[in-house]
């Protein structure tokens, strides 16, 4: 599954991405299938995953995971998958009264303007690191998604600081054990300054950028959209500086097939 994309990215479940900051952006379409892909890639490989879910509940990921053949409930019980229910935390922040339990909520920045996302970072750190405070083995931090935080009123600076600290924790160098995959919405028809600023900040952190968008010619039954993969390499002058690859994709029941532009089965 997703084998073509894995070949292009150079990852698979036996060789997970290490030291990579993968930024997924989608415009006028839904790029969350890539989140499910990375989630199942790591679970299948037996590596550790911390999923910071701000957009969907655990049931949703579990349902999709079952279709992809990856049992998330079992992984969660085993401790391989650490799930941070950001959706519930954000709802609690809005529904609880100031007297009760606001102090422990990691998303207290939503009500308290002077707070930052530091409590959320501390929570992620406890989930991801061992007792010594370091990563043991390849670990993935999946953030789905960052635009939700901006929509809820967190400033782009706070989100960018949080992601900076996550990057320092997981993948400061290309030899680190950890990796980060995060999703940012970048809808072309919406003029959202905060969101665009956040996207640009994340683009500077990222080592791989997967831009998911619909076809410019409009809706098609056989080709659902295209993914542009951009590698930002500044470490090794013997390789090319930025490489871009474009793929088209079609979302099916249990898989997403990727193919070079113009080679869809409907066309050939």
């Amino acid at each position, binding site marked *: 599954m997703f084998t073509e994309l894995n070949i292009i990215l150079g990852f698979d479940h036996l060789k997970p991405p290490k030291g990579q900051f993968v930024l997924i952006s989608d415009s006028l379409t839904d790029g969350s299938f890539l989140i499910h892909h990375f989630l199942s890639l790591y679970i299948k490989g037996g590596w550790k995953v911390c999923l910071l879910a701000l957009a969907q509940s655990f049931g949703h990921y579990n349902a999709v995971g079952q279709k992809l053949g990856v049992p998330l409930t079992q992984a969660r019980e085993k401790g391989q998958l650490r799930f941070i229910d950001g959706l519930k935390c954000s709802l609690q922040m809005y529904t609880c009264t100031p007297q009760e339990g606001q102090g422990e909520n990691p998303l207290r920045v939503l009500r308290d303007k002077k707070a930052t996302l530091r409590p959320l970072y501390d929570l992620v750190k406890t989930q991801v690191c061992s007792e010594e405070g370091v990563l043991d083995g390849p670990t993935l931090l999946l953030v789905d998604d960052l635009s939700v935080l901006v929509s809820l009123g967190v400033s782009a600076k706070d989100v960018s600081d949080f992601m900076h*600290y996550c990057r320092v924790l997981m993948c*400061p160098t290309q030899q680190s054990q950890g990796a980060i995959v995060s999703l940012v919405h970048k809808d072309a028809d919406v003029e959202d300054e905060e969101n665009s600023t956040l996207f640009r900040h994340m683009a500077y952190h990222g080592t791989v950028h997967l831009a998911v968008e619909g076809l410019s010619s409009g809706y098609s039954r056989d080709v659902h959209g295209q993914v542009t993969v951009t590698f930002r390499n500044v470490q090794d002058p013997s390789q090319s500086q930025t490489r871009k690859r474009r793929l088209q994709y079609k979302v099916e029941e249990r898989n997403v097939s990727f193919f070079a532009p113009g080679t869809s089965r409907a066309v050939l």
Partner: protein
Amino acid sequence: MLQQVLEGTEASSLVVIEDCVDHDGRPVFHCFCSQLAKRCESVHLFHLENPAGVFLEGANISKVQSHDGFSDPLQWEEQNRDPSSDRIDLASALDFLGHLKRTPVKTSPVAVVIDSLTPFLQNYPGYVICRALQRLLRARLESDGIEVSQVVAGFHGDLHDDSTAAALRHMATTWVQLQEGAESPTQGGAGFHGNCEVLHRRKSGKVIRQAEVYHISPQWSLTSRVQKAPVRPVAHVEQEAQVDPTANLTFNLRLTDTEKEARSRVVLPYMHHHRKKAPNKPAANPGGQIFYQPDDVDDFDEEDPDDDLDF
């Protein structure tokens, strides 16, 4: 110009490298770090967006003093503080010179490399950054105990507004704006390359603005040259020898003189000639006759319309 500023042949106290998401400035930064480590006695690297190792590969690290703003800029990590390395705290007052003074520096002048100004600009107003940079540039050996020969700072053009960029551009003696990469001059050659626009102000007051092409070798050395304006192909106005189209044919296309005269006298069927009216001539077309009366604007002339064809 970029190469001269890098090598020190052109003096420049504040060099700002403006990049954007599509055109990364880190390779150019790396070259500056390596070159400054070679020609200056001491280099202070303020790294906030990348670990120090990104810029120090291939450089003489004994001369480089790094100030860490990457690991913990906001003091969120209480433990694991390494007291030996100098850390930048974005919550306290900004003072580049203070950081320099804190680390024991035996040699002077020093060079300062800042990667990049963006985290500072996110936490402090623009004028605070400008003031701190001015203090750095004006440091004198007698009063501050240290002198700064060159400051190289990175600036992300697409993350900040125009007024901040304008203020920094006013301060900078060299402003390098990275642009779309050109085709590699040596096909398949290794290294990074790209275009840039360099705005350089000399102490004499002369301002030089040039579009340049730079190339970075795998050993992190940068060469640049002025980009030549694309040469437009000059329209060739050559008088080619008139080729006779009727020559070298298997059939005859030429006309004798009598034939030419006869052709000119041919009456065209739709022309109503007053001179040669034949009243008894049966109507050529029983259904109707076409009478053509040329207007004043019609130019009808006797010339052969094929005469002006130019092969």
